[in-house]
């Protein structure tokens, strides 16, 4: 997939009182700072149950990019990075 000039909608579905969800969400927000090619939204699972079912999310935190489930049950912030799109705008700077 060629991501040049692509705007990414990055959603992270999180559970309440879940420390891993919190850590991964913080890490995603930090990753997205200064990125103009991404829109990040942190979504509590209980607020969008039908979407959770449609996307077939079974474990949180779950990463959804441009409407596709990329990973569920991410175990740590370091695991998250492998699933995130490369920074094409600032590449080579």
């Amino acid at each position, binding site marked *: *997939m060629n*991501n040049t000039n692509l705007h990414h909608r990055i959603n992270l579905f999180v*559970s*309440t*009182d*879940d420390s891993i969800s919190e850590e991964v969400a913080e890490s995603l927000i930090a990753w997205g700072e200064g990125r103009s090619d991404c829109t990040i939204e942190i979504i*509590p*699972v*209980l607020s969008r*149950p*039908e979407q*959770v*079912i*449609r996307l*077939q*999310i*079974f*474990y*949180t935190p779950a990463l959804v*990019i441009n409407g*596709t*489930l*990329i*990973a*569920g*049950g991410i175990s740590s912030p370091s695991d998250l990075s*492998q*699933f995130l*799109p*490369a920074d094409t705008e600032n590449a080579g700077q």
Partner: protein
Amino acid sequence: MTYQINHHHPLTIIQERYGGAPRRRLRLHDFPMWKNMTEKEVGRLLQIATVKVYSRGEVLFNPIDEPNRLYFLQLGQVMTYAVTPQGQKKILHIFSPGDAFGALLLGAVDGKLPWAEALEDTIVCSMDDETFKHFMMDCPNLCLDLFKYISQIHVEAMRRLRGLLHTKAEGRVVMALLEIGRRLAKEDQEEFTISEFFTQEDIGDMAGLVRTTVSESIAKLSKLGILRKAGRKVIVHRHRAEDYLQEFT
């Protein structure tokens, strides 16, 4: 960049070794048709079923509810329990994502439901017997998977029962601890912690032992390095526990 779809969560890949043949606890989303549910089927399921959300501590059903519903657990964990006349909670089961439960599927003891409580953020789809008929007509492939799932539960129960009959106390305790680990979705962890939430009495109920025998067995298993205690928690070393059971059986 090519996105990599990661359906590779540990629950679906870990195979357990004890009891002879490799086995794992199957969930609905492990079954082919369920796993490959089409958008149309998901849409139909959402039309037929009732979607509900529960926060930790909220009750899904209790003994005075009518025992006529089926639940598909999409996300979260649900504990079912009975309450003794002395007011004590007896844990019956812990359900994880991909499990199905409810009286319509698994029956009710003496016509009564247990209590079912969400242990964390939980999302379920549920249907009563009338809506289940629509489900059967509209999603026959999914129904077939559901049927296979029920058969699997039955086989699991029989295997566990046979294991209990032929295993001495320490082995039964190990089986119960591994079962709790599986239910809590800790199948990928080399070591897993069983919180004080599960009492020795709960472990005894699962293993068919009295509390004092559980306590003695835990002390013996601790000496063998299969587990260790950290306060009231029990930390289980998975591979040693599985190897121990394999030697047993």
